[in-house]
């Protein structure tokens, strides 16, 4: 189930007079302060933490709307923080990595992050990423309110996914990915299509975001994730949802 009260449009960083809260975890004080200033400039409400332990405590006390996690942290590392927060809720998580090797990116996504940024990043780009992650599932062009695929039932507007009558718990991004595939009427969507529709990236976004999220989605909705029955990989083209 998608938590209804978090799917409001936060495009201006505010809704109902309450700021969207961003929890940041960054051990470097100067970066932490500068990023807070930049995010506040964009209209977000920022809570800073300097370690993974502090972040988990702050999140447990009051869940944020978005979490920004630096991977390299003293104590429990960013991946662990990410996994813990993912257990606590569906909140969008953005990983920040300073390393150039790609293992961090994949490990971060597998730990449950929705998107990632490489240091140094443009604060405007960060805001754009946060806004994209907070977008509500696309419903404006009037997709059917209920899509049934075998035993899989998707209700885009209600944010509900059921498999064989049981509620399936998806993160916001996984849900949006599933809805895009479900409303495509069995057409194949390329990684680039999905990057644009779900994450708001242009053609040059990282296709691994899609691949890892599809993998995560399969573990939740497929009876046998190794031999997917719903989300099918079409070699050379992309993914499609099969009835």
């Amino acid at each position, binding site marked *: 189930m998608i938590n209804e009260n978090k799917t409001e449009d936060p495009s201006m960083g505010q809704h109902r007079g309450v700021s969207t809260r961003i929890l940041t975890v960054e051990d*470097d004080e*100067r*970066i932490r302060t*500068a*990023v807070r*200033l*930049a995010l506040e*400039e*964009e209209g977000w409400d920022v809570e800073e933490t300097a370690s993974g332990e502090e972040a988990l405590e702050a999140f447990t006390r009051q869940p944020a709307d978005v979490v920004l996690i630096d991977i*390299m942290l003293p104590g429990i590392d960013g991946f662990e923080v990410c996994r813990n927060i993912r257990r606590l809720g569906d909140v969008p998580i953005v990983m920040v990595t*300073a*390393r*150039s*090797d*790609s293992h961090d990116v994949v490990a971060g996504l597998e730990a449950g992050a929705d998107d990632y940024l*490489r*240091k*140094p*990043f*443009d*604060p*405007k780009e960060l805001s754009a990423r946060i806004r994209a992650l907070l977008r509500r599932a696309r419903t404006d062009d009037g997709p059917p309110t209920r899509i049934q695929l075998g035993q899989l039932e998707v209700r885009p507007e209600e944010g509900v996914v059921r498999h064989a009558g049981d509620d399936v718990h998806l993160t916001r991004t996984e849900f949006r990915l599933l809805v895009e595939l479900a409303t495509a009427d069995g057409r194949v969507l*390329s*990684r*680039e299509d999905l990057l644009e529709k779900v994450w708001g990236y*242009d*053609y*040059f976004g*990282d*296709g*691994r975001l899609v*691949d890892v999220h599809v993998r995560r989605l399969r573990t939740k909705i497929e009876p046998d994730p190794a031999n997917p029955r719903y989300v099918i990989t079409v*070699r*050379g*083209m992309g993914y499609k949802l099969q009835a």
Partner: protein
Amino acid sequence: MTGRAVADDANRLGLGGRIAMLFAVGGLLVSSLLATSTLVLTRRQLVESREGAAAAMAVGNATRLSNQLTPDSTIEDLPTIVDSLTRLEGGQRIIRLGDDWLPAPELDRDDLPLDLLKRLEQRAAGQVLAPVRGEPHFVVGIPLTAFDADYYAVVDLVEVSDTLDDLRIILLGAGAATTVLAALLGLWASTRMLRPLRRIRGAAEAIAGGRLDTRLGPQADPDLDRLSDSFNEMARALENRIHRDARFASDVSHELRSPLTTLMAGVGVLDARRDELSERSRTALDLLVQDLKRFNHLVNELLEISGYDAGVAALDLTEVDVVRFLQATVAADPALVLTIPPTTRSLVIDADKRRLARVMANLLDNARRYGGGATAVILEHDETIRIAVEDEGPGVPETERHEIFDRFARGSTGGRRGDDGGTGLGLSLVAEDLRLHRGRVWAEDRSDGRDGARFVLELPLNLTLGNPEVEW
């Protein structure tokens, strides 16, 4: 050129070839030596036995002649006596009686060697090996002491030379066969000997190709075992060093990126509040923003390069539709014309999209800075994929077409380090990224003969990498 082994031109043959050659030369020398000594010894043997036979017969005949002669005998009596004498095949005789000479059918006194004649005038017997009418002959002269007469026997050596000729042919054949056999033996031996070297070469190539954990197994030969130990030690040291470099690059990456993150966020805040700044501050801020961008760019490219140097640069392969990729690439610039073969709808390859995007960005950037902006992007494909980027600038001089891919090379028209934001690393990164993709890049003249540069990227249709862990 430090660190590059200088090969002697004479040694171009290769170790295996040289060993085979050495064996062949050895075989040739030994067989020649054997043939020559065989010939010399045989010849001596044959000549001596012929000589012996001839001399013995001559002595016998001279004695018999002496017995049959009487003091009254004249030259007319001689033929009848001579007929009773023993004949030797190929032998002839000449007899002097007083002042008369009984010549042989084909020879007479003038054919006899002069020194032998002189010797017999002294009434002493003698024998010489001398040419008679151009052919080697054995001539025996025996004075008949009881009379004023001499007996000469002239024996040819034709039989001997015939035998020697046959022998020579046989030995020549045997020598040639020996040489060829020796060469083959050398080739076989060198192949066997070089087998461990080939294994070492294979291991060295594997290491050069990035499989740093390649090691040689134990060798059967103690000498080779030492070599293999040294090789493994070298490989281990190299691997440690490369990993240390890679760690260093990664650490530097982190260290440089953190302050850059602070800078970008801080400058971003200032930029968002630029309306509150004075004119002078705004100008200063603009400078900061621009150079921060350039600094960021430079740091990224340097880190990228250090990744190649440490051998840790790896491809993040995903399916890339080259047609859509190029359409997305040219979309931002309305002046760019994209040409795609009319029948090509899509062209999916496994590639690193981020790197390909940077390659195209660098080529377009290069065209913008040195060629007045790219005008055309052309896709061609058959067994390989070729993407050409053309501009209408002055082109790249033939002499600079290689060096522009060197680091910090800027070409003769470059050199100005103005506000263009170029780092001088762009094209070298292009070359490295293409190399990672098992492709290549080069600069050439425009195909339509007009002024301008044409950079061509060549990519394999099927990228197969030795390292499967990057694939997913």
